[in-house]
């Protein structure tokens, strides 16, 4: 804590969409309470701090640093290491920092395939010379260095020791506020590597208000093709809901809004592989007496792997595609 008795707080964005930075503002007027007890010492999205300002801080200067986004390139790793050094408490904020999030879906492709798509094959790209970004490049005005692209998307904890992980895409405002309060009052759980905070221990089904009628799934549907019957479990109606395999904490927000759970809070406590967990759950729910029927039913699910691991590819057991994903 600094001379004025206020906490020093940092927030950084790595491979992320910016939604986490916005979600911090979603706490609304409570941000004024936060401003009374804390000073922002680093927040690239909202305030003009440079990396060299952070490098000039003494070690452990930041009381709390929220790191959102996964690690896709060397700059994000460098800043992660710098912030670990300068922070007393480092929090992985949001699904990307905790589990890889949406960016980690790129782990099903090789870096080569990604570059091919982005810089050559994309229909909106005009690149006749076939130029790709190079980490080191000589120009008439001097050498230019840009961050190196990593072969896979990593979580924050793959790079540095993380004290707490706050999951969600983005973390729900009330959970963020509870976490901030806990940090400010010192009532945080014992500091340990990747302890999840701001979430429950059970699954989204535990907080879901919809009724289960104990019927089996006879058909999988996509949510734009079907208007679900109100009050009835979406999964039983054939909408792929990740609720049974997803950690509680959001208050079943999407489901209350009529959308099936997408799984952003990651796997439930003591589960590592969220995709494997939903396969396990679906096994007991399919209306299939034969293997052919089971095959027919599950073939109605579009892109099962992408949906089961939408937010957790970097946390799943397998993490990357075997052949680097040329396809």
């Amino acid at each position, binding site marked *: 804590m600094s001379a004025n008795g206020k906490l020093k707080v940092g927030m950084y964005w790595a491979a992320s969409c910016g939604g986490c930075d916005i979600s911090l503002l979603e706490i609304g007027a409570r941000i004024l309470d936060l401003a009374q007890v804390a000073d922002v010492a680093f927040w690239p999205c909202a305030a003009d701090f440079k990396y060299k300002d952070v490098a000039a801080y003494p070690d452990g200067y930041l009381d709390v640093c929220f790191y959102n986004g996964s690690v896709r390139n060397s700059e994000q*790793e460098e800043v992660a290491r710098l912030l670990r050094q300068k922070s007393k408490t480092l929090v992985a904020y949001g699904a990307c920092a905790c589990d890889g999030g949406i960016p980690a879906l790129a*782990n*099903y492709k090789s870096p080569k395939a990604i570059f091919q798509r982005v810089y050559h094959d994309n229909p909106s790209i005009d690149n006749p010379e076939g130029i790709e970004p190079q980490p080191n490049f000589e120009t008439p005005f001097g050498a230019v260095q840009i961050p190196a692209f*990593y*072969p*896979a998307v*990593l979580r924050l*904890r*793959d*790079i*540095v*020791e993380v004290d707490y992980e706050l999951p969600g895409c983005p973390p729900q405002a009330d959970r963020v506020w509870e976490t901030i309060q806990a940090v400010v009052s010192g009532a945080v759980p014992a500091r*340990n*590597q*990747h*302890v*999840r905070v701001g979430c429950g221990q059970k699954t989204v089904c535990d907080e879901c208000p919809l009724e289960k009628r104990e019927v089996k799934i006879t058909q999988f549907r996509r949510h734009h093709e079907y208007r679900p019957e109100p009050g009835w479990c979406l999964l039983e109606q054939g909408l792929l809901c990740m609720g049974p395999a997803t950690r509680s904490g959001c208050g079943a927000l999407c489901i209350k809004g009529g959308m099936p759970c997408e799984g952003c809070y*990651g*796997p*439930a*406590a*003591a*589960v*590592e*592989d969220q*995709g*494997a*967990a939903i*396969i*396990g759950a*679906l*096994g*007991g*729910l*399919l209306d*299939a*007496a*034969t*293997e052919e029927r*089971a*095959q027919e039913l*599950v*073939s109605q*699910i579009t892109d*099962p*792997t*992408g949906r*089961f691991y939408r937010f957790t590819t*970097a*946390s*799943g*057991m*397998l*993490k*990357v*595609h*075997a*052949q*680097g*994903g040329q396809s």
Partner: protein
Amino acid sequence: MTTTETKPDRTGAGQKWEPRIVGFLCYWCSYTGADGAGTARMKYAPNVDIVKVMCSGRIDPELVTTAFANGADGVVVLGCHLGDCHYINGNHKTMARMPLLRRVLEDYGIEPERFRHDWVSAAEGEKFARLVTEMTEQVRALGPLNWPERMRERGVGHGADLPPWGSNHK
């Protein structure tokens, strides 16, 4: 076993590589069947490390992904025939899970021949022996999977060492 090639593996360069297959077998039928194969002194490939579980319905797909992630070259899941489950319908759940699990493993680039599920009754020691030998030869033809090495190639686990398996998500 004359087709074995000399390939480097996780236990050291130059050693003869042998497929390492993890088999999850239910206690009531398949494990008893495997036991029967042994009691009858049938010859079959010694490449399957058997994990006995009470019911094939207990085989969480995470056990399969964990086996592959930790270096298994193949995984085989065996349970009672449909209708024979000691717990009435545990194997029906297994049956419903397998097509999805197979699809997910394929999306990760794991060849379908590396993962197999079948039903082996307590009286089918011969089927168990045949199945294990077939599977071993299939996996041998594909070569090592070596997932930990593939992850290292992609820089996963780079920087701080990966936390030990099982320590995630407290």
